[in-house]
């Protein structure tokens, strides 16, 4: 248990070291990995796995996955990035993902938060509201 706590704290610290101006960058991650390789931690594999999990979580928090059935304009994507960066207080990058089940509209997921403005979502909410 104590070992896990230490590894967790180390992984969180490594994630913080992987940020450049609050954004996880590939270069910083490479540096961190190189450093880990040099240090050769006793629980090297566990540290790497934990670091990967926290890194994925951090990337997810910094990424707005915009699901849409059709391609979005750059203007709309930039507006989404600006809005959620301001909302969460950190740089958020928009990534589009095609999803034809939405029919039309967009669905944005930032971490565990989902913002739905799709036709399918609206129809689903309409159906749920009918009782």
């Amino acid at each position, binding site marked *: 248990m104590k070992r896990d706590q230490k590894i967790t704290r180390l992984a969180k610290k490594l994630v913080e070291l992987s940020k450049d101006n609050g954004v996880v960058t590939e270069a910083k991650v490479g540096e961190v990995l190189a450093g880990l390789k040099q240090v050769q931690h006793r629980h090297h594999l566990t540290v790497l796995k934990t670091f990967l999990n926290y890194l994925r979580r951090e990337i997810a928090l910094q990424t707005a996955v915009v699901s849409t059935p059709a391609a*979005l304009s750059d203007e709309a994507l930039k507006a989404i990035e600006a*809005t959620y960066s301001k909302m969460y207080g950190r740089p958020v990058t928009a990534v589009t993902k095609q999803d034809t089940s939405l*029919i039309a509209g*967009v669905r944005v997921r930032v971490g565990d938060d989902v*913002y739905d403005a799709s036709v399918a979502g609206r129809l689903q909410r309409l159906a749920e509201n009918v*009782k």
Partner: protein
Amino acid sequence: MKATFITLLLALSLPLGLVAAGATHDAVVAHGEEAAPAEGNKLTMITDKFGVTVPTLVAQMVNFCLVAFVLYKFAVKPIAATLDERQQKIADGLQYAEEMKTQLAEAERERAEKIKQAAIDAQKILTESREQSKEMIEQKTQEAAAQAEAIIRKASEATELERQKMLSDVRQEVARLVVATSSKVLSRDLSDSEKQTFSDSAAKELASAGN
């Protein structure tokens, strides 16, 4: 009663005295015919004429007293006692009969009173029973009405709930069908440009909502 018998004895003794006097008179007449010329006294003549002599008279009086005493002692007194006793019995019987009559009348009156009271009580009980039965019938009727009303209300509520549930199910099913149909229709009928336009507007809507 005793006086009556004494009077009766005297009345009986009078003929006996007369008979005795007659016998004495015969003796006196026989003797008088011989002695009349010798005595001039009128009284003597009368007594002689009627044959009354002192010894005979005394003896007859003694006899009479003895007979009267014996009769009184052994005949009149028991008979009088018997008659008195019988008369007492009769009087007692009459008194008893009178008492019985009185008691009978009293009993009859009490019986009539009791019958009357019983009739009144019976009427009262009957009236109370009728009132109680009437109240009970009314109470049971009210209870039955309340129960029927409660059953009807429960049934109505159950029916209403069932109806609401059915309506909800129907609405949900209709909504599901509408959504499914709309999804299919929109997926088929919306062009790519329309989808893109809608997606852009939705993205801007999200962006403006976030701000």
